[in-house]
């Protein structure tokens, strides 16, 4: 966040911070303040449907001029563009692109367990997990929080179920797809992964799980690319100490999720200018490069020179260039409510032994309306 603040200040703006730890709480505060006529000048949301209602209520300014000037249509990937461009107008300035379902592994841990190569399919993954378990290590480092359970599920759905099933389930909310045997297999594989986490997993924060990889006590973690910041601050390098698998197979989907700033209307010309300034500052090339390097994300712009980013980021960027592999995050199509309901069901299934058919039914019901 400091990179953004610096860039904004460098462009002549004045940054006043209201920090709130925890994404949901921050959004809660932002929403409350907007309702309470004390709207912040900018608020960070996910590039999803989260702020759709804000748009519908006419509470956000449009950024069409900034978008034209910077050529957003050309440089932003499609899922993000769909989130920030509504009815032809642009309402949010994307900050970063993340892929939430990378599979990370600690090279030392894998070596110790006798796993020779990166797994390239779920079958190989389970073999590797078994070996890690046998070697007395934590096979899958996982933080038992609902959103993290959701990430693991999406990883399985994208890689095992495939792009078609993913879209049918999340974009079309097709009940038949959810009741299908393929979906069932995704769910059971998801549940099977639960057998490889350690007892202390429930409630654990994601960075504590990454710490297990860093200290070579665990083998794998399924998490977004923001873990790279943890690795770097511990002095670990990709390729040498840890590895990153974007997915199984040469055409595995690349799920795109992003953060974006929205700018509530304020009625003040000075604020409007400041908001536009912030929007162009954070989407500028230099800022994007600096931010991505620190956060572990990928620049939102396709025209940034990424040779200075680490190899996992470069891998991500090159995959993203292939539009057929771009896949939106479930939040792109599901309302926050549906997404939340799905997370509730998944986290309960992860922790409790339920019949798969029951889970399928519940998911279909949750995504129905």
């Amino acid at each position: 966040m400091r990179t953004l603040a610096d860039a904004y200040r460098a462009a002549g703006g004045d940054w006043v911070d209201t920090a709130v730890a925890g994404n949901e709480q921050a959004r809660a505060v932002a929403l409350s303040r907007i309702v309470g006529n004390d709207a912040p000048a900018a608020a960070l949301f996910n590039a999803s449907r989260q702020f759709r209602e804000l748009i519908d209520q006419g509470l956000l300014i449009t950024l069409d001029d900034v978008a034209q000037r910077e050529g957003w249509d050309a440089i932003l990937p499609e899922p993000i563009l769909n989130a920030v461009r509504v009815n032809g107008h642009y309402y949010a300035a994307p900050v970063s692109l993340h892929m939430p379902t990378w599979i990370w592994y600690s090279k030392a841990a894998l070596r110790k367990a006798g796993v020779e190569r990166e797994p390239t399919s779920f079958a190989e993954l389970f073999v590797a997990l078994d070996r890690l378990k046998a070697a007395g290590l934590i096979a899958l480092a996982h933080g038992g929080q609902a959103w993290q359970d959701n990430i693991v599920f999406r990883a399985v759905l994208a890689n095992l179920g495939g792009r078609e099933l993913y879209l049918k389930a999340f974009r079309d909310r097709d009940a038949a797809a959810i009741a299908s045997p393929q979906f069932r297999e995704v769910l059971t594989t998801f549940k099977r992964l639960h057998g490889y986490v350690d007892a202390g997993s429930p409630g654990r924060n994601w960075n504590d799980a990454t710490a297990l990889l860093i200290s070579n006590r665990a083998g794998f973690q399924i998490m977004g690319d923001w873990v790279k910041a943890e690795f770097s601050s511990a002095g670990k390098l990709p390729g040498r100490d840890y590895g990153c698998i974007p997915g199984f197979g040469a055409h595995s989907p690349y799920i795109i999720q992003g953060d974006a700033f929205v700018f509530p209307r304020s009625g003040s010309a000075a604020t409007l200018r400041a908001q536009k300034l912030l929007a162009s500052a954070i989407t500028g090339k230099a800022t994007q490069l600096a931010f991505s390097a620190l956060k572990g994300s990928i620049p939102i712009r396709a025209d940034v020179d990424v040779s200075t980013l680490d190899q996992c980021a470069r891998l991500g960027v090159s995959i993203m260039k292939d539009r057929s592999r771009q896949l939106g995050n479930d939040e792109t199509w599901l309302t926050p409510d549906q997404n939340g309901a799905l997370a509730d069901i998944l986290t309960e299934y992860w922790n409790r032994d339920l019949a798969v058919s029951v889970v399928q039914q519940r998911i279909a019901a949750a995504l129905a309306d």
Partner: protein
Amino acid sequence: MITRRIDSGLRRAHLALVPMALVALVCYLGATLWSLRISLSSSRSFPVSDFVGLAQYRRLFSNERWLHSLGNLATYGLLFVAACLIIGWLLAILIEREVRMGGALRLVFLYPYAMSFIATGLVWQWLLNPGLGIQEAVRRWGFSQFRFDWLVDQDHALYTIVIATVWQASGLVMTILLAGMRGIDADIWRAARIDAVPAWRLHLWVIAPMLAAPFATATLLLLTGVAKLYDAVVAMTQGGPGTASEVPTKFIMDHLFGRANIALASAGATVLVLSALIVMMPLIYARARSSRRPA
């Protein structure tokens, strides 16, 4: 002259109660009615004024997480109130006899009430974490089979919330009961000693019934704590593992903002208020009848 004074006194009394009336009617009643209205609509992040009947309530009661939350709250409420009352009472009995270190000990038992769960949540997580806290420590002492992993156990996570909140509130119950014991006539203690009544019998059959009022006050305060349970859950388990320790207030909060469904949240809120009403109704009625005072 006195009549005029009395009249102006009454008027002033009415005036003085205006803030309370405002708060009670506009804020509390108003908020409840507003919630009710929203729960009958299809509002998402912002209120809309359509009318969908009881659809939100139907959705609410077919929601696994909500039903689970209600059950959890009921279980929690029973355990919490019972444990606090018993432990607070026992502590009061023990301290009442102890003259020398009474003051310091009282502070030891009361200090948790001064701390919020934002502060203590993390520590409780550590203490109850099987790999870090009590289980690990006891195992290191040699009891290698000792298990205390309730925090991460589906079926027992709720009990950890009970433990932490009982730790926080028992001191208050103890203080209230202690104060009550102070008000008991010295003759009773003396008579008990002379008759050589064993202490436990004295406390159970004689003193405790005389403490009915402090017990009632303590129970009332504890019940308000149960209804508002939120901080401890968020700080310790975030409702997990899975949905094992979900509570209604968390459901409402999550749906107000994160899930952008204030209609569903309001339906939950209305149900909560109704439950509180049902619980409080007999109490209020009893009080209203007993406190009819002559002018």
